[in-house]
């Protein structure tokens, strides 16, 4: 059995990893649950965002400030993606295929520009670390956790309390009926898709802050993040964060107790377990 300090550190690492899972899952759960699109390209966008942050940081920008540039640009990408999918009336499973195509294209692009090597962003945030008792906490991880909580809560509040949120939920429930009641569902869907892509940009910046980047790594995130999205409940903005923290912690404990290599099995097992215990929930 590992020591208490190691377990505590693992727990903390799990919470931080889980926050990033939640952040990646937020855009996915909204587009899947509310727009009926399974956007595999979300992962490629996150990595594109990560690389752009990396590049701009190398040019002297503050990593967080780069979002002011990247997020609006991604918003437009998201709008364009939805416009394409809506124009061709692509069914939900086919959105998975189309965005798979985009994922592969973006991966090739990333590899062409930044090569297949691992890249690590240098930033002044990275150097900041604190020692709390016997545990170490780094600033980039805290930033990620804070952003993940803030975006999830903000999305939840918007959907819950604003007219915009009500309209979006009405669209998710029954788009033609919402349209009949005067909701401009085409415009709002474009908006939401743009927002999801902007969330990918945010996740990308956080990814660059805390992880090393390589184009092929995007596939490593797919399984766990989809598990987070599904366990959290489709379309529920708080779901990915809660499920992400749970999975992150379970993975970290698995790593501490067995071997790091077994971590990828945790999310899958949890999802299969959820399916077996409560199939009616899905």
């Amino acid at each position, binding site marked *: 059995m590992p020591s208490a300090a190691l377990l505590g550190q693992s727990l903390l690492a799990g919470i931080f990893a889980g926050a990033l899972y939640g952040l990646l899952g937020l855009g996915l759960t909204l587009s899947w649950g509310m727009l009926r699109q399974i956007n595999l390209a979300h992962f490629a966008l996150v990595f594109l965002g990560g690389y752009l942050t990396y590049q701009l940081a190398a040019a002297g920008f503050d990593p967080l400030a780069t979002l002011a540039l990247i997020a609006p640009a991604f918003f437009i990408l998201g709008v364009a993606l939805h416009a394409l999918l809506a124009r061709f009336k692509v069914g939900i499973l086919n959105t998975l*295929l189309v965005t798979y195509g985009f994922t592969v294209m973006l991966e090739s*692009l990333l590899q062409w520009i930044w090569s297949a090597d691992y890249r690590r962003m240098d930033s002044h945030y990275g150097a900041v670390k604190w020692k709390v008792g016997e545990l170490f906490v780094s600033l980039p991880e805290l930033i990620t956790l804070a952003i993940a909580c803030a975006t999830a809560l903000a999305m939840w509040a918007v959907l819950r309390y604003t007219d915009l949120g009500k309209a979006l939920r009405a669209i998710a429930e029954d788009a033609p009926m919402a349209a009949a009641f005067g909701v401009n569902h085409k415009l709002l869907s474009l908006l939401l898709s743009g927002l999801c892509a902007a969330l990918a940009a945010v996740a990308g910046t956080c990814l660059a802050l805390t992880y090393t980047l390589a184009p092929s790594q995007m596939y490593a995130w797919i399984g766990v993040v989809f598990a987070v999205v599904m366990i959290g409940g489709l379309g529920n903005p708080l779901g990915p964060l809660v499920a992400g923290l749970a999975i992150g912690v379970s993975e970290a404990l698995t790593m501490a107790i067995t071997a790091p290599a077994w971590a*990828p*099995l945790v999310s899958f097992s949890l999802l299969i377990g959820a399916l077996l215990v409560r199939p009616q929930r899905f």
Partner: protein
Amino acid sequence: MKPVAAFVLVGAALAVAPFLGLPAFYESFLYLVFSWVVLATSWNLLSGYAGYFSFGHAAFFGAGVYATAVLGGKLGWSLLATLPLAAGVPALLGVTLGAVIFRVRALRGELFAVLTLAVTFVVSTIVLNTPIDGGPGVMLSAVSIPKLAPSPSGTFYLMALILALISVYISYRVYHSRFGTGLFAIHDDEEVAEVMGVPTYRFKLGAFALSCALAGLAGGIHGVFVSYVTVAETFGHWLALYVILMAAIGGTRHWLGPALGAALVTTLLYAFTASEHALGGRAVVGLVLILVILFLPQGLLGRFSRRAAFPRKELIPPDASIAVANKERLLVIRGASKAFKGVQALAGVDLEVRRGEILGLVGPNGSGKSTLINVVSGHYPLDGGSIVFEGREIAGEAPHRIASGGIARTYQIPRPFAHLSVLENVALPPMFGRVAMDRGRAESEAWRWLEFTNLSGKAGRLPAELNLHERKFLELARALASRPKLLFLDEVLSGMTPSEMDEAIRLVRAIREQGATIVFVEHVMRAVMELTDRVVVLTNGRTIAEGVPREVMRNPQVIDAYLGAAHA
């Protein structure tokens, strides 16, 4: 020419190649083509036909690779001896995964797609971290292969050719069979397929097992072909992408589509990898996938993927048992209850249906009529109570079992299988109903009911080309074709013009004369009065009145239920 003969002939012609003394390069290239034909065709059995997109084909291929790697590379078995397990291990893996996912009711397709995305990663993690591989890869160069041709590359060519022919032949047979029809029906509307008697769960598992086994066989052979296997190479996500692309390009609803796509894409990829543009090649693959889905969603063979109708055979004489209304109780429902999140849709319904009668089931909207049909047909499980049909308890049975017991239904809003022709739609229930005919006989049977409902002129059309009342009649024809003992008609008259209604009423009478007992759910009181022998009134999930139509309709409780208490 018989299809088997055609396959053997094509195979024999292609089998000559290794004996012509061609450079080994051609044999190896064609080996790759055949290998991809196997993978794409096997993927299509479940994912194309039944519409459950799998992103995990690499996992099943890889399971086959490593079954052979362990048995052949580590334990010294010959290639042929390893193949049964190279097929068996992936099939078992697929069935286990399917057994979990296919039980989920909603989101099955999406859940399946996403879970299969993860499964490749999971299987590769297990292989990498256990003695199966452990990290360094496995050498297979010492595995003995059968000597089918003068050179090893010729032998691999022949093995892949045989496997490709088997895969395409299986694809062809499934496509034309009862099994395939069931899979196509699952693709279009799984719930309706189940209610029409298709054992959907078993069919999906069967197709998945077959698909995984073939992928595993290709993997087993491929492991020895490349002679050194690693986890990274074997479980790359490219395999799933290529396979999906191949099937999509060729056409997922045609038995030959994936094979055609495999040949095209393999050649295209070769052209790229042979040049300096491997990276660009991948991007092009991604782009082609997008363009195909957007602009050619049916694939190259899409326009040829309508199955030819069978020649009409001699009609089978109808059941001699023309029933007369009698006192025998065909269906007895006692205390049936069903709640949805606190809404008590059925609150202890008692109902009897007597053989040969037309029973009217009426009640205001929301009174539980449709829920009642749904619990009898097995679509919803019952919370409490019992349903006995012909002396047998059917509550809790799978819908397809109930259907083959002789209960059929129509849907208020018609739910035809969108990609099957009108004839195929009507021929489906006889294939899975209580008679279980083969496709040819079922189509002959279908013609009879198309004539009965005046739809024979539209037999070759797709349901989308019919107007509403024709679609309602299609619902009827489909329910009749299963030759039900008990038929639930759910508001067949709604949305019809008065003259169409007269036609429908004549039809319902004719159905009873064929020997079926009918439960007639309807709001059109004229038709209820005209047609039914007995009426049961349902309100708030309870039966409140029962008896001869004229008397029941004068019952003050019934008037209350329909018009509100103030009226009485």
